[in-house]
């Protein structure tokens, strides 16, 4: 009797929480997107293609960053925003899927390949650079953006670092195991590499003078500068391209073709420029960088090569 009573209490509590969870997510989904990504009404795609499958399902799971402005982050109300998010919405829109039908999945550097391989996401727009070793396990479509590697130094540049060559004998911070760190080891081996697991620690180490410079894709440096404009200077001599592309399951050439067509359309109809202005230009103006004009988007690579 006693057990039954407790069982009922537990069941009731479980129901209450699950109901609360349901209503919570329902209200979350109702918030309308303010970005003007157009949604195709009845797109048609070749039978059996990924596009046809997603269009029929009417929903899509997209991997984005939740913590990397200006590419992907959550605003104060928990809504996804950023340059990558706008690109992702446009790709979904072309499939007839409205922004509120998108399931956003957080992807980080370590789980992007597994998530694509295990089908946990349909595609990934998460500051995802094309590399040869990644191409062995997943495929790409694009690139849609170049976020080159650059250096940040303490405000006023006390060590007088004007480019990557000046890092010889200096302590340079980078993310453990990143392509950015690999670039330093390969081409600037005289720099003393100090490695942390997250960018914020590099920023803190640079601020307290434990390292002389911090190297990263430029977007991360912008992010740190926006938070603390009086702490850092951007060296502004980019030295390694990092071409961001949409990550897709390996070998899906058709899907790659569709995404590249969408990117081309975004560039020609002004939506690309709009996404740049809303997400990146505002940030650069906040930092007070002199040049906040939009760079020419990188040229698209052939889908046959990207999905081999």
């Amino acid at each position, binding site marked *: 009797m006693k057990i039954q009573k407790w069982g009922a209490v537990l069941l009731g509590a479980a129901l209450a929480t699950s109901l609360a969870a349901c209503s919570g997510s329902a209200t979350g989904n109702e918030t309308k997107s303010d970005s003007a990504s157009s949604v195709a009404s009845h797109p048609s795609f070749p039978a059996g293609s990924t596009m046809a499958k997603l269009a029929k399902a009417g929903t899509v799971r997209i991997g984005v960053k939740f913590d990397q402005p200006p590419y992907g982050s959550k605003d104060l109300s928990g809504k996804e925003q950023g340059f990558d998010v706008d690109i992702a919405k446009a790709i979904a829109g072309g499939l007839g899927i409205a922004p509120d039908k998108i399931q956003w999945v957080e992807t980080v550097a370590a789980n992007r390949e597994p998530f694509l391989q295990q089908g946990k996401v349909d595609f990934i727009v998460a500051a995802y650079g094309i590399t040869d*070793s990644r191409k062995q396990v997943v495929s790409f479509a694009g690139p849609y953006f170049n976020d080159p590697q650059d250096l940040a130094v303490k405000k006023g540049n006390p060590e007088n670092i004007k480019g990557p060559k000046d890092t010889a004998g200096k302590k340079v911070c980078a993310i453990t195991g990143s392509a950015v760190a690999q670039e330093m080891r390969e081409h600037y081996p005289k720099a003393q590499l100090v490695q942390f697991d997250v960018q914020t620690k590099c920023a803190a180490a640079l601020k307290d003078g434990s390292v002389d410079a911090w190297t990263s894709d430029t977007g991360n440096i912008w992010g740190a500068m926006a938070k603390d404009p009086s702490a850092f200077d951007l060296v502004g001599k980019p030295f390694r391209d990092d071409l961001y592309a949409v990550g897709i399951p390996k070998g899906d050439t058709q899907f790659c073709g569709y995404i590249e067509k969408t990117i081309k359309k975004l560039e020609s109809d002004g939506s690309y420029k709009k996404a740049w202005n809303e997400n990146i230009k505002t940030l650069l103006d906040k930092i007070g960088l002199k040049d906040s004009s939009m760079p020419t988007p990188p040229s698209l690579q052939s889908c046959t090569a990207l999905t081999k």
Partner: protein
Amino acid sequence: MSAVLANLEIFWEGFEATLALTLLSTIAALVLGILLAAFRVSPVPVLSGAAATYVEVVRNTPLTIVFFFAAFVLPQVGVKFSYFAFAVLAMSVYYASFFCEVIRSGINTMPIGQLEAARSIGLTFTKSMRLIVMPQALRTVVPPLINVFIQLTKSTSIASAFGVVELLSVMARLANQESQAVIAILIATAVFYLVITIPSGIIAGHIERRVAIAR
């Protein structure tokens, strides 16, 4: 497998750092732990109170936070060490509290009459600790000491997030570089940790048998 063999040199670099971090931290933590344990059982309230406070504060704080203090708070007040030195500092400070408690439990197994006898023949507290109590107490706690040592060995991986290139940083680097062989690299990394921890368990077994007191 080939991805592991091709990068053995890089693995070795990380292994050396992990081993150095483990050994230096263990020595420092053990010395500090013995001192703390002596303080905790001492009759001077200030010493026993201070040692007890230290143990309770440090032992109940996540190691990552201790690392944060060492690597990011100390530089702000002007302490400039290498990140390796900060890591040794964080590990020693943290594990001293665990070693202290293990040793204190060893001291507590000793009949109180031994200390009374030592004091009554004119030994000071310090001398009776050093000559009578500690040698016996340490022998009884070899297995739990090794337990803490193994835990310490594995915790060195936290240093990878605080500027030290050890096994886990090497793993992150290789996993990124050789995306096609991630599983092999994860297994190899685990094996390198086992190379430290399993022999230490075996050695501990030997020491335990050699120094055991027949009661």
